[in-house]
């Protein structure tokens, strides 16, 4: 009898759960994976981004880059875009919920995001299964596009950027022995570290010390004091700009003057802003170069500054380009609902010239683009020649 009542309670509780979800689902459109809703000529694009929480700085840049691009595309009038933003808080479960909502409730045509690689590894397989094109704008680690045919990225993978900067630095500064520092709780930094290590081995530079730190650390005195006693020719740092800036500051403070080669995380005006003079000598390879003598770049920077009253960073620039690329592909298909066609059109995007330079997808849906090795000089990113 009791067993029965328990059973009943179990069923009742399950029912309640379902009910709760039903209440939520009020007003949801017809479901289906048959394709996006065809409500006229506007292409709905879902954006999953890290909008609140510790990494909201990145999500904010991405959002602003995307909004700027949307406004420009809509002003041109060839295609109409609608962006639907969802916050992932940098958590994978939230990201999964967000893409599911965007695909199945908002019926978006395609997706942009998410911000972190870990999130993409979680949502990529789901989105790919649903046949929705998704483009990462900030993902640099290995293995992203291997998730599936619908997964794209326009951010340059570390494996393409880091070797260039390391090689250039070796050639320029005659590096023999270097120290590496990386954030060991950040996937991007760990991936960057591995590429640093591999590249250095390939070109015959000795690694005399490997030190780690963690995201949000503020004290790097121990690692740098240790490194200083070893007198390396350069320090390689894989991390995000916030920690990178503090490392540069501390390094210069305790008298380390050697060049510091960074991963993608270095590629931000915030690095210079926070580190000040200490940023001089920081080296990074990037397709995005704000000092580039290019009309597109200049007008992008001007428009961005006018709208948001700050300098754009690579996240904004890459997000901007991502939506432009998406718009081109949508225009090519002539449909705002056909995901399959959009995927195929995206895969064939070539010769797009954006603010991050000339752009095309390679056969693995990674970007094929030129890289400039930059060095900070007198508080400015300049080309390292």
């Amino acid at each position: 009898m009791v067993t029965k009542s328990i059973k009943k309670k179990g069923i009742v509780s399950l029912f309640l759960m379902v009910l709760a979800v039903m209440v939520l689902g009020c007003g949801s459109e017809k479901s289906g994976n048959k394709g996006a809703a065809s409500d006229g000529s506007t292409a709905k694009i879902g954006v999953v981004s890290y909008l609140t929480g510790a990494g909201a700085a990145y999500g904010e840049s991405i959002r602003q880059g995307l909004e700027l691009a949307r406004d420009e595309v809509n002003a041109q009038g060839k295609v109409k875009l609608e962006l639907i933003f969802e916050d992932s808080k940098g958590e994978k479960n939230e990201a999964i919920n967000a893409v599911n909502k965007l695909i199945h409730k908002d019926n978006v045509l395609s997706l942009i995001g998410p911000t972190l690689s870990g999130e993409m590894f979680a949502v990529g397989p789901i989105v790919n299964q649903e046949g929705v094109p998704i483009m990462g704008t900030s993902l640099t680690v290995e293995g992203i596009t291997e998730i599936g045919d619908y997964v794209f990225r326009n951010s340059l993978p570390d494996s393409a950027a880091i070797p260039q900067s390391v090689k250039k630095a070796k050639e320029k500064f005659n590096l023999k022995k270097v120290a590496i520092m990386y954030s060991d709780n950040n996937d991007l930094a760990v991936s960057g570290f591995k590429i640093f290590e591999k590249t250095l081995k390939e070109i015959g530079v000795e690694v005399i010390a490997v030190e780690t730190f963690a995201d949000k650390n503020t004290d790097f005195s121990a690692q740098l004091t240790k490194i200083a006693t070893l007198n390396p020719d350069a320090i390689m740092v894989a991390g995000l700009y916030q920690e990178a800036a503090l490392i540069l500051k501390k390094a210069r403070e305790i008298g380390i003057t050697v060049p510091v080669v960074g991963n993608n995380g270095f590629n931000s005006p915030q690095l210079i802003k926070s580190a000040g003079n200490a940023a001089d000598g920081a080296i990074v390879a990037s397709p995005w170069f704000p000092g580039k003598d290019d009309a597109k770049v200049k007008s992008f920077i001007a428009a961005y500054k006018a709208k948001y009253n700050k300098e754009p960073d690579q996240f904004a620039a890459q997000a901007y380009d991502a939506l432009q690329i998406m718009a081109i592909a949508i225009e090519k298909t002539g449909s705002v609902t056909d995901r399959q066609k959009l995927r195929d059109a995206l895969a064939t995007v070539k010769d797009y010239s954006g603010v991050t330079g000339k752009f095309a997808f390679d056969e693995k849906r990674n970007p094929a683009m030129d890289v400039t090795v930059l060095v900070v000089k007198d508080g400015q990113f300049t080309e390292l020649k």
Partner: protein
Amino acid sequence: MFLQQMINGITLGSTYALIALGYTLIFGVLNIVNMAHGEIFMFGAFIGLILATTFNMSIFSALLGAMIAGAVLGYLMERLALRPLRRRKVSELAPLISTIGVSIFLESLALRLFGPQAQSFPSIYAAQLFEVGGLKISAVQIIILAISFGLMVALRFWLAKTRLGKSIRATAENIETANLLGVDTQKVIVLTVMLASALGGGAGVLVGLAFNAIEPTMGITMGFKGLAVLILGGLGNITGAMVGGLLLGIAEIFSVAYGVSSYRDAVAFGFIILLLFLRPQGIFGSKEQQGGR
């Protein structure tokens, strides 16, 4: 290198101690671990930053401003999140949860107000470097060390000698008895929380100066360390907070200098787990606190 690393350790440790002081003061009187202390610390840092940059105040006025802001936040927290709980008999869990709520609230409020970007004090305040025999010590390091030790001594003196200090100690001993002895415990509690929060706000400015990064999530990172120190030094023990803080700072630095840096963040809690097995009352805790109640 050893001496330089020792200095690094002491600098780091004194910031931990500074944060732990606030935790321990509140715990001593209220038996509450204030999970929002880190966020009050973070708010203090931002307020100090704004006063110093936007309003061009001197760093000392900014410090004072941050402490006042901390005290105000402390008052609000006590009024809204702690007092309603004290009126009824609740489990010791409740204030913990309530302050976690406050911490989440303050962190997201800070994200809205100040933005997610890390900011830093203008470089005029930044480290002026002293070199003694190859060892480098920055002015900020010395200031932090001096202030945290000064605060510790002042606090101890104040608690021991002044009327209010004595009431705080009486309340910490036993709220009911203190009440019977005519101590206005309500007032004492409010003052303690405000004092601890003012200390937290001030610590925010100092740590912001020392490490150059002020951002909304700094509270949780530093708060964790403060929490570790709280346990390490013995709950509610001021000397314990100081020594525990220094010990943790030095241990962390040395784990990097002579060990594996990637295990640095495990040091604090590894230490604690070990300590709890050997001496559950903390290094300086009294026997009665053993294992909790």
